[in-house]
């Protein structure tokens, strides 16, 4: 988001500079040090792998693959932030992803055809399937929340049971079969089969950059309107330039990944045309990544600008105080887990669309990746602290490590050993950082 600094102590763990010190360069920029640290770690990882792979890691092709591989876990990680901030845990997200994926696969390949008599390939099929999956995911999540909030069963137990239950409900739903191929429109949410193309990607980049600048400007105006102090104009400009550069750079990278000639030939052939000489096209921004960006924005607004988000952080900080302030913490728990369930279903769309089929083992161990992403991203298991962008960065860092090591040729067991060690290290660094800065 545009205004990360001092104004948002609620959602923001790394806060402004201590009082009474001369404002240095970083203090004037009012940047979130934790965010900077994570971005720094990510850039370091990318550069190291780029050297180790002889420049193959930071190619447009690999950046493209990295982003589409991250989306599914990252979407769920944003929901896990709310769960962990309120001192709960959700171990069932991978299984919930499997159940909702199974439901959506069955809906679009069998159930909807039988019930409504829709023909295979009908344009309403993917949307009805997605709607069905989102409803099922939200309902299961809300049910989990009811067991935790109203019947006061610990979240660990409810979701540990859920891990077994929903994994096997998915199995039962499909009889253990792989269901595919999925609907063509549905598969556009998976990544490579659904991208915006060069032009729309640039349009998106410009709109996003304009929105970011507007966000900065309007936050500044609001502060001035109330007579609060604002950072110097040059600092505001520097932050804005940085954000715009990042957006444009990212889109430029994705737009540089050209569609291979044989794929183009095949596409033209399918339309009964011949590929013109010298014709090239690039993939651009994947729809799944666009989906993640939308989720990130919505979840950030929920976290920082809505009462729901405020109550989530207040309850995480001090459950008794939240209760005494008149917050219905039980209903809040239901809402949080319902959001988690909804996001699991959304991730299931991306994950199954990327594979182009539903498989029985889809989402296996995702609960651990999602929790690790949230925690690496600075979400405190003791509650009350966490950010949406942190969780997404956490997911990106984990995916970079995993695919970077695979490219370098690290043996599979070592890959997991490293990822596990990084998780523990990240929490240790976070603890040391908080002790130093005096944050709780």
């Amino acid at each position, binding site marked *: 988001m545009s205004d990360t600094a*001092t*104004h948002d102590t609620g959602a923001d763990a790394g806060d*402004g500079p201590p009082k009474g010190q001369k404002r240095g360069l970083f203090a004037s920029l009012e940047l979130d040090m934790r965010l900077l640290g994570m971005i720094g770690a990510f850039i370091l990882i990318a550069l190291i792998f780029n050297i180790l792979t002889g420049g193959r890691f930071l190619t447009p092709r690999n950046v493209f693959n990295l982003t589409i591989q991250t989306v599914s876990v990252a979407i769920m990680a944003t929901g896990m932030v709310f769960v962990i901030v309120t001192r709960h845990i959700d171990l069932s997200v991978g299984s919930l992803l499997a159940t909702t994926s199974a439901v959506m696969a069955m809906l679009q390949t069998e159930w909807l055809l039988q019930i409504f008599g829709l023909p295979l390939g009908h344009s309403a099929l993917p949307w009805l399937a997605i709607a069905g999956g989102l409803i099922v995911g939200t309902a299961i999540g809300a049910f989990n929340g009811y067991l935790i909030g109203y019947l006061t069963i610990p979240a660990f137990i409810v979701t540990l049971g859920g891990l077994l239950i929903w994994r096997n409900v998915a199995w039962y739903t499909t009889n253990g079969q792989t269901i595919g191929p999925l609907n063509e429109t549905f598969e556009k949410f998976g990544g490579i089969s659904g991208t915006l193309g060069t032009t729309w990607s640039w349009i998106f980049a410009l709109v996003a950059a304009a929105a970011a600048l507007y966000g900065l400007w309007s936050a500044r105006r609001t502060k001035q309107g*109330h007579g609060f102090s604002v950072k110097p104009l040059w600092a505001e400009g520097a932050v804005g330039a940085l954000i715009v550069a990042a957006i444009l750079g990212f889109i430029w990278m994705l737009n540089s990944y050209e569609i291979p000639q044989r794929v183009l030939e095949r596409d033209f052939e399918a339309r009964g045309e011949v590929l013109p000489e010298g014709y090239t096209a690039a993939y651009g921004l994947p729809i799944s990544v666009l989906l993640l960006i939308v989720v990130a924005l919505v979840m950030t607004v929920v976290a920082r600008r809505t009462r729901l988000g405020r109550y989530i952080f207040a*309850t995480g900080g*001090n459950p008794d105080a939240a209760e005494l302030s008149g917050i219905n913490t039980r209903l809040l728990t239901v809402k949080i887990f319902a959001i988690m369930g909804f996001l699991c279903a959304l991730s299931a769309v991306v994950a199954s669309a990327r594979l182009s089929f539903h498989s029985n083992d889809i989402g296996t161990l995702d609960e651990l990746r999602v929790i690790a992403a949230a925690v690496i991203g600075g979400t405190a298991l003791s509650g009350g602290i966490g950010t949406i962008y942190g969780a997404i960065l956490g997911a990106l860092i984990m995916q970079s490590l995993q695919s970077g090591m695979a490219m370098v040729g690290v043996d599979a067991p070592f890959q997991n050993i490293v990822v596990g060690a990084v998780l523990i290290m990240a929490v240790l660094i976070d603890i040391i950082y908080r002790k130093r800065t005096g944050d*709780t």
Partner: protein
Amino acid sequence: MAETPLVELNDISIAFGGVQAVDHVSVYLYPGEVVGLLGHNGAGKSTLIKCLSGAYRMDSGEVRINGERAEINNPRDARAYNIETIYQTLALADNLDAASNLFLGRELTTLTGLMDEGAMEAETRKVMGRLNPHFQKFSSPVSALSGGQRQSVAIARAVYFNARILIMDEPTAALGPQETRMVADLIEELKKQGLGIFLIDHDVHQVKELCDRAAVMKNGKLVGDVVKVDDVTTDDLLGMIIAGKAPEGVAA
């Protein structure tokens, strides 16, 4: 006093497990009056008052506000009756800043339904400017504040929303002499505005000074009657607290 009491707590009882924490206690409170609640730790003062603030649900008895029976089942109900509470623990969310805590559960929103952070901070600056003019840490989480600053945030929250009934559970326990003086002045001012205040305190001198009447509790029961503080000495009050004996011939 012939007028209807602002608050009547009639025959309140509440038990936890086998322990009768509050045993058939009745207390009333008039507008513009400060009633002190005295007693040892575990005497039942805080528990009694939590039945009024909605934190606990009483087993039996009734609450009347302005003579009408009030159903208070949770803190939201209490707030609806303009009952505000400053808890001994302060009940602040440590990870949030002063404005977020002040408006917790009653956030100001813009037309879009999103929270109006700017307006909330501006209001917080106003009310804190009155209560604690030196307070500057508006963007720090309250965990970074001193005991007195945290207390002033809790007090600001209670007085900001036009409370008619104020419950203060040991409001000066964590404060230095100067800040204690500030709270005493505030109580005087609120009294003049016609609020009814329940003041829970350990310090008999403070109760003598600030309260109009005082009730002493021991083992969940009221010791004798509620007394006018001017009719008793501090020794009388201490006797009631320690020995549980009511001084003779004194009643309010």
